[in-house]
């Protein structure tokens, strides 16, 4: 069983997710975090370990795509945590069709919580309102994009590529 197509597909999705926000940086009160949606889709179908691996890759991209984040590597660890969290919740998926959506919001909220905590500790500036709106915007985009991304993951899984 080869995992190369899945790795390539996720890499392309993540790169798109990190580059695209340049488009809609102006209209919404908060900007959505699209990278966490790709991470969540992989984590929901494959569990916490794959979720953390995809999260690690997403965080590295967030840190490296200009203007990037500081310090280098902190994004990778944060997104890996989010991926592992969403993956851990995925076992309760059969409960309700809302579980994937709620788990994704939880992952996005975890990332914003890290941002808020570092700001509270005196590193960086993060306004609580901005953090909230960012999670809200991510939740909205998750409604539209998460089914599509899960569809991609399911397609890869059915082909034996993931």
């Amino acid at each position, binding site marked *: 069983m*080869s995992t190369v197509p899945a790795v390539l597909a996720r890499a392309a999705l993540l790169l798109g997710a990190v*580059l695209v926000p340049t488009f809609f940086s102006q209209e919404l009160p908060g900007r959505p975090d699209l990278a966490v949606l790709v991470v969540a889709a992989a984590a929901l179908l494959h569990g916490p370990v794959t979720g953390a691996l995809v999260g690690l890759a997403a965080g590295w991209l967030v840190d490296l795509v200009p*203007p990037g984040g500081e*310090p280098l590597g902190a994004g990778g660890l944060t997104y890996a945590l989010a991926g592992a969290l969403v993956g851990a919740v995925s076992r309760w998926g059969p409960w309700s069709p809302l579980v994937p959506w709620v788990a994704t919001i939880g992952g996005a909220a975890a*990332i914003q919580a890290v941002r808020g905590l570092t700001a509270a500790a005196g590193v960086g500036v993060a306004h609580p309102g*901005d953090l909230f709106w960012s999670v809200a915007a991510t939740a909205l985009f998750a409604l539209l994009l998460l089914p599509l991304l899960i569809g991609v993951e399911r397609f890869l899984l059915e082909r034996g590529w993931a």
Partner: protein
Amino acid sequence: MRQLLRRLVPHHLGGLTRPALLGILLALTVLVLLVDLARPSATAPLRRAAATVLAPAQSAMTGWTDTELTDLTRERDALDARVKELEAQVRTSEQLTELERAAEGWGGHELLPARVVGFSSVGTPVGGRTVTIDAGERDGVAVDQTVVSSAGLVGRVVRAAPSSADVVLLGGSDVVVGVRFGEDGALGSVDGRAAPGLPPRASGELTLTSVGDSDIAEGDLVTTLGSPESVPYVAGIPLGTVTSVDPHSGQLGETAVVAPFVDPDTLDLVAVVVLGGNR
């Protein structure tokens, strides 16, 4: 197809379980994080390489608007007019106050137009506002140059790659700007983070702290004080206006809320002040 892919995958990777792979990659990430904290210059080449590869893609994606050319021309003309107006303002204030800003007004420097092509992700663990512009070392951009827009001060360059540069915006982490405010040009500093004990600020608002015992009044214009050799901030650039003065709470200098002229969410065309450009 599947057999071909199976042959392409290195066999030694197949022997590694996913948890083990995750462990190794997490350990490597922690290592890079520690190196970056201890010695940022060691990881700079990595960022530079990423910027070199991705900047063309970012600037191509920003350019996908139909009215780009007309918009750019209009904005450039507006910027030009504003610069002339500000040059005149600086000249007047020089004559009026006889302060030491005569030599370092920003009128004498060349303005290099640039477009914002990337905003910092909302997912970075350390919050802050940074943008990427499509001008880099090849155009003469260097670290610690001032970036302005037609509205006023935007920030300063923190990283420069061959064809792009990262700009930390006003109100970002660790950005403190020396300023003059009010009619007399009293000294103060503007910070993105309010000192403990002050009333909470709305998103985007800055805090002005007076250095001396001069009073801050609502509506005071805040302009940059300027740094020695104009690095990182050129003198006399409008920054914002005072919207409310904080009540005294025992702190040394008086503090006030400043609304910046530049809205970081709608930044598009900016200009880098290239020092000594056309003197």
